[in-house]
């Protein structure tokens, strides 16, 4: 296959557009990790539930797409908080405080993931559903070299930027955001500051799950919505979070974009059938040689 800059540019653009979605999910994973020291293995299912909530709102209730997006974020946030309250909290408290990761947490996360997927079968069925959204008000971008970027991707990019900016503003410039950061760093001291730590933990979980839901609703119109969509996204998002530096929020987005570009280039120039391996490869390489991630500051690696 000949090499030309136009197609290279195209692959990079495609990588970025899908990468931001990885980034949003990774953002949630990073948020939960830095806040609660939990690697949330059921986050892909939150993403899936978010997509379905959005679908139900948009198709069955008939609200406009942006409303469905916000509604799905809220509903999934509530679901996430419920799961955290009912299950994870028990596990963390047993270990004294809110920080006991390790094996129990990982197994619990996997079990939760399996349970949520199968609960979703009950409600949504196994069939893939198309997510049709009227996005005529979004411009369709055309890049030089005849590269089309459809509306849904443009919208995704815009919303991702908005979400990131919103999250940044919330964490840096509001009092609650300050409290969230305090809880993330050390729960005991946050308690002594008079912060309602359990509430903040719920908030962190809710926020993270809301972000995953946003990713689900955004990706709906690009791909279809299906109960088993979560797992692969989870893997990509993990890769993104690790590449960007676990716990680093801007790193998560950058990591997502890197994973997106990396796997698109790999698929285009090496082999398309190994596409999913590239994300893992990146994940493993980063973990082996720079566990703190490419943009991370601090990683929980032993001394």
């Amino acid at each position, binding site marked *: 296959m000949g090499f030309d800059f136009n197609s290279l540019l195209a692959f990079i653009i495609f990588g970025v557009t899908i990468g931001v979605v990885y980034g949003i999910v990774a953002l949630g994973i990073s948020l939960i990790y830095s806040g609660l020291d939990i690697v949330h293995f059921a986050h892909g299912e939150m993403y899936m539930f978010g997509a379905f909530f959005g679908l139900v709102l948009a198709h069955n209730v008939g609200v406009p797409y942006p409303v469905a997006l916000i509604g799905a974020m809220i509903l999934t946030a509530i679901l996430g908080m419920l799961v955290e309250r009912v299950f994870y909290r028990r596990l963390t408290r047993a270990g*004294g405080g809110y920080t006991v990761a390790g094996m129990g947490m990982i197994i619990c996360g996997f079990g939760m993931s399996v349970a949520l997927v199968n609960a979703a079968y009950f409600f949504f069925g196994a069939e893939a559903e198309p997510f049709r959204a009227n996005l005529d008000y979004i411009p369709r971008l055309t890049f030089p070299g005849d590269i089309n970027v459809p509306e849904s991707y443009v919208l995704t990019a815009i919303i991702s930027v908005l979400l990131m900016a919103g999250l940044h503003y919330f964490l840096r410039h509001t*009092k609650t955001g*300050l*409290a969230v*950061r*305090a809880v993330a*760093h*050390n729960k*005991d*001291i946050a*308690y*002594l*500051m*008079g*912060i*309602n*730590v359990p509430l903040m933990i719920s908030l962190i979980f809710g926020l993270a799950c809301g972000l995953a839901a946003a990713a689900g609703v955004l990706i709906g119109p690009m791909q279809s919505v299906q109960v088993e969509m979560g797992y692969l996204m989870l893997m990509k998002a993990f890769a993104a979070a690790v590449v960007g530096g676990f716990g680093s929020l801007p790193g998560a987005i950058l990591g997502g974009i890197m994973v997106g570009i990396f796997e698109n280039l790999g698929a285009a120039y090496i082999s398309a059938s190994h596409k999913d391996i590239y994300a893992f490869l990146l994940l493993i390489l980063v973990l082996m040689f720079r566990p703190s991630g490419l943009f991370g500051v601090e990683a929980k690696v032993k001394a």
Partner: protein
Amino acid sequence: MLEIKGVHAGYGNLKILRGIDMQVPSGGIVTLLGGNGTGKSTLLKAISGLIPLMEGEIIFDGVSVSKLKPHERMRLGLVQVTQAKEAYPAMTVEENLVLGAYTRKDREATKADLQKVYDFFPVLRERRKQLSGTLSGGEVQMLVIGRGLMASPKMLMLDEPSAALAPKVVLEIFANINRIAKSGVTVLVVEQNVRMALILAQYGYIIRDGVIMMKGEAKKLISDPAVKESFLGGSVSDTTKALRN
């Protein structure tokens, strides 16, 4: 102000405090002395609510707080200043201080208090935009005390304010604590530095193995040979004397 009645507490099955009784009268400074692993940090955690009580009761300002969560106790004005190493290093000095006032709703008064803290510790004003991780040990200690003050406490509990600080800085910090007490805040200082703490405080408790071994007026304790005898973590001169006896 604070009354502790027969408190038993610990972690999991491990009981560390075995029946602590203590009173901190309103106004003034009380010190709690003890070496490493004697249970003084555990007692502080029990008072501020980070660990649940197994037995006993804690009454603050006439209200039983035994069942309250830490943030609820803090809203009553029972504020604990953490050890200096527990400032939030990734936040700026000002963010740390604002966090101290997290529970307060009165914005204007909070702002005024922020200025008051800056007046109290001018060095913090100079460094308000710096990340607290870049401060020196003494500055961080001032920061955490200032953060405690931001909550407009009725009672302030300090956890080893002299730890890992140069003697000169310790003196400065203790002078500040004295000023805070004079402004009407009740202070409980937990210390290993016996002599300095007993000079600062009016009343002292000595804890060992999870029980109060000795208590009394600071002036009496400081000259009590029994204190020197029993308290083995004291200064060299104290110990030297103890050895000679």
